[in-house]
């Protein structure tokens, strides 16, 4: 993925997530959703480093991971609208999306639930001798789940080709990482399993891309799992309608200064990879893409309720 595509993807995600927040406020979509505003560089930097055969697992906050991996905004939006054209024909909703055909093995409503699943993907890859690496996104909150520890141990013992990518956005819902993790650096967990690890600035697209590429190489070459921590900040609320009483507006304002898109744009301009006019055009294009996605979703038919009980078994 070249740098301009990376920029385009980050913008798509940002606009998509803003639209989601708005659509909820306007009552046009229901259920729940967790947006990833401020975390776009993690999703896109990672996707840029992945190879087509690789597999990704995601979390409840998965729109960005999915879009970066190649999801169509229209079908993703249609899933949020509960339409027949959605990725899972309305059966999944925001927290449960999957498209194995592009190596996206699922958002998951259970915090930490996909961690062992990712190791299973890696085990399958190893047993079948493919060159696939499984990459597992999880949050700082999920790091407190026991299955994370079990899975690190398993992956290390079996030297599986898996990259554990902790998106440390400082919060698990209202709980700061310092109140949910006795030791603040998730990457340090790797040492007690003899796993390689690194920490990087998750708001720096280039740093993410590079570190993920290195981690994937490590895993792909048979050196076993890699634990990578990307430090970022969730600028959105935890889920739609979160009043964010647990943190100060000042903290958020400061975090906005470090948000990844403006930062990446400054880089593009400084490196003369884009002009102001280019960026303006790209912003407009991203906006249009999302408007189209919404239109596609809203004009799509509802799923067929008569067949709702079908498809539980093959």
């Amino acid at each position, binding site marked *: 993925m070249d740098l301009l595509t990376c920029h385009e993807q980050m913008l798509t995600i940002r606009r998509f997530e803003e639209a989601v927040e708005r659509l909820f406020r306007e009552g046009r979509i*229901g259920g729940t959703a967790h947006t990833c505003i401020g975390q776009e560089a993690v999703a896109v930097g990672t996707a840029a480093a992945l190879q087509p055969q690789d597999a990704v697992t995601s979390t409840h906050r998965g729109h960005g991971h999915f879009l970066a991996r190649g999801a169509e905004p229209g079908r993703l939006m249609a899933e949020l609208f509960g339409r027949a054209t959605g990725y899972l024909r309305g059966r999944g909703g*925001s*927290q449960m999306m999957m498209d194995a055909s592009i190596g996206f093995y699922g958002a998951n409503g259970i915090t*930490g639930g996909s961690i062992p699943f990712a190791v299973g993907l890696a085990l399958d890859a190893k047993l079948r001798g493919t060159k696939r690496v499984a990459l597992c996104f999880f949050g700082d909150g999920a790091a407190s789940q026991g299955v994370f520890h079990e899975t690190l141990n398993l992956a290390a013992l079996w030297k599986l080709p898996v990259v554990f990518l902790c998106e440390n956005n400082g919060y698990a819902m209202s709980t700061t990482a310092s109140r949910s993790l006795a030791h603040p650096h998730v990457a340090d967990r790797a040492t007690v399993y003899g796993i390689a690890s690194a920490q990087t600035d998750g708001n720096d697209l280039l740093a993410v891309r590079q570190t993920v590429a290195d981690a994937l190489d490590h895993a792909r070459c048979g050196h076993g799992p890699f634990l990578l921590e990307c430090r970022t900040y969730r600028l959105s609320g935890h889920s739609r309608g979160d009043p964010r009483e647990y943190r100060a507006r000042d903290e958020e304002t400061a975090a906005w200064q470090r948000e990844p898109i403006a930062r990446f744009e400054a880089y593009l301009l400084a490196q003369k990879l884009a002009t102001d006019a280019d960026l303006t055009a790209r912003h407009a294009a991203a906006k249009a893409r999302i408007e189209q996605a919404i239109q596609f979703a809203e004009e799509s038919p509802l799923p067929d309720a008569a067949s709702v009980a079908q498809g539980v078994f093959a």
Partner: protein
Amino acid sequence: MRTVTYTQILRETLADALRRDPRVFLMGEDIGTYGGAFGVTRGLLQEFGPERVRDTPISEPAFVGAAIGAAAAGSRPVVEIMFMDFIALAADQLINMAAKLRYVYGVSCPLVVRTPIGGGRGYGATHSQSLERLFTGVPGLQIVAPATVSDASALLQTALAGADPVIFLEHKLLYPLREELPEGLPPALPFGRARVVCEGRRATIVAWSGMVPQAERAAELLAAEGIQAEVLDLRTLVPLDTETLVASARKTGRVLVVEEGPRTGGFAAEVACRIFEAAHDSLDAPIRRLAAPDCPLPAARNLEAACLPNAESIATEVRALVR
């Protein structure tokens, strides 16, 4: 008199227990500043402090297990599991430890696990389940599912004063429910007493938790057609008030059991069995069960609605039953 919501009375009941009994403490994810995903504990941190209103990391097995240990030592922990779907993570601790403590080890375990159940909000397949069926078949666990504001408090008080583990189910759609109540808390209610929501002679509708308001509305629809249905609210699944169920079945001769979860392997089967085992000869028609189809609950509103029993589908079943 005052108007109180289900959420509010739960909060008041917890606050009352925290005030009166120093052994009581609360534990769960984001129950402090955030007040819990559904706001039940909002404000309690401010009054009781972080030692007694304890935010936990996302470690359901550990904090449920810790609550069991604390309860065995004499504390009275009240744990919140944010959505009942997540209780599966702590199933081992509840089934293999909490449920065994008194019978095997001879030790009290005054633990209350509060958790929201049910669909209707488009949250999807892992945030909408009614998983009481995981525990109704595990001796040693009591399963409580209040459907009204006053019962929510009355049964929570009993849970808080008890000596054995309670899984306390709060249907998400019940939280905004309002009731006119006197100041203070309603009196506590013993477990194992079903509530006769309304009387009728033509058929009995048995429901619990979020299905009770639907059953009530169904009874209104039916009454308008001249069909007088009796509605029973189980209130507690374990222990189950077989007596009241059987008495009503004997009276009406026709019974519908309504369950929000999928049909197969649900608790409605137990309810139906209890009734026919005791009142087989008084039944004028086979007991019916109305439940969700045997599939996960989809997120899309129209699909979700197609799965969940409601006043209309309950009324339809009763019409067929009395025909």
